[in-house]
């Protein structure tokens, strides 16, 4: 049961993209994925020991490389669903930031854990590029020869293509969080949710 969307997602996201954010990026999704994956893996291989000693450096690297090609604001809107109507623009942005921080932290942690173990294969795109939703399929190869499929879902923005969802073995980050966060926002309000995300609060169900 490879249930941990995030456990695996880290791995996948780790290989996601980085690119200089100067003006609109004209590169296409598959190209974005493979170029930046190569770049991140390179820095991991050359500076692995350094990152292990100072995990926060790893987080910085991931933040710098990853954030420019993510559309976290769009992800946040998808996750909020109809609850977005009762939220201000600033609240949506705060939620997007809080979520991307959690993601980056987990992703960096996962990268360190899996360093040197993975190899990325970007599969050929099926059909045409769709500006509203283009799914880039990749496979991460583990040392034991198994493959973990990790897909990135892109859409086209004024700033070029941006990823807004990661799907690991069929488990979508956006869908899973949407199903959790929507009821939570209904119950406690968006500010409370943002605060809890910010605190990285543990919720142990068995203690309820």
């Amino acid at each position: 049961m490879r249930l941990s969307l995030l456990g695996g997602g880290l791995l996948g996201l780790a290989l996601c993209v980085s690119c200089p954010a100067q003006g609109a990026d004209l590169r296409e999704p598959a190209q974005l994925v493979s170029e930046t994956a190569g770049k991140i893996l390179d820095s991991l291989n050359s500076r692995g020991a350094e990152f292990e000693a100072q995990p926060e450096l790893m987080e910085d690297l991931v933040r710098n490389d990853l954030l420019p090609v993510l559309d976290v604001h769009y992800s946040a809107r998808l996750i909020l669903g109809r609850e977005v109507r009762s939220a201000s623009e600033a609240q949506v942005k705060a939620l997007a930031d809080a979520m991307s921080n959690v993601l980056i932290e987990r992703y960096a942690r996962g990268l360190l854990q899996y360093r040197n173990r993975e190899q990325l294969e970007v599969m050929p795109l099926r059909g045409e590029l769709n500006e509203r939703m283009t799914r880039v399929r990749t496979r991460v190869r583990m040392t034991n020869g198994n493959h973990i499929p990790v897909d990135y879902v892109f859409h086209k923005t004024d700033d070029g293509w941006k990823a807004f969802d990661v799907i690991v073995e069929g488990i979508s980050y956006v869908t899973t969080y949407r199903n959790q966060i929507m009821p939570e926002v209904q119950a406690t309000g968006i500010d409370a949710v943002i605060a809890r995300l910010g605190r990285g609060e543990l919720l142990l169900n068995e203690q309820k």
Partner: protein
Amino acid sequence: MTRSRGATMHVILNTYTRTSRTGLLLLCLGLLGGCAGTQSRNTDPVGDPWEGYNRKMHAFNMGIDKVARPVAVGYDRITPDPLQRGIGNFFRNLAYPVTLGNQILQGKFVAGIESTARFLVNSTVGLLGFFDVATKAGLPQYDEDFGQTMAKWGWDDSRYFVLPLLGPSTVRDGLGFSFFGYYNPVSWYAREEHVYWPMALDLLQIRASLLPQDKALYEAYDPYLFLRDAWLQNRAYLIHDGEPPSPDYEDYLDEVED
């Protein structure tokens, strides 16, 4: 990993229900009855109409895990990774009869031949399945069970149903496990020979392999929902052989705009 968990589900379900079927039924009914009409909320009336019962069974399983997890942590600490991989491979290789049977029932004959080749290679060159040489040689590992077969046959949507000890399932998949689990060699061995340690080891290895994912589960807002949604999505992925439909993002947004 997924398949070996499935295999074990067959195993436990069979052994477990055999020894205490009545007790199990009573437990289920008790929980079902206890919550009838008193559900505080229902997050998915279509896919999870028994949420009240399911949440209680989930809590029960998490309680059991309070004992199981420390054992798995200890095992993980003293067992080197390569050995753990070998043990996992060994049990996964034994799930071959279940996989093959369901490949045939789904008309996947080429894949069935590949699985057979896989089983033969791993059982011999791979030293009784301990080493997964087949995957390295390009023979893919398939994941099939009777729940997936019934989904292929048309039972597309089945309500979510948390099983005692086994965790996330649906009515369809729970039935599937109990039918085909009978043919899993590990459960067969336990049933016929009354030797239980291989099954215990299988379970222990599976629990240990899930340890890195505990954090994500515990950090979830609502671990019950997290597990349910992730499990159901992964299940759809398996049923569609890795090609499930994409989430309907437009629909997520429509809710925003309506």
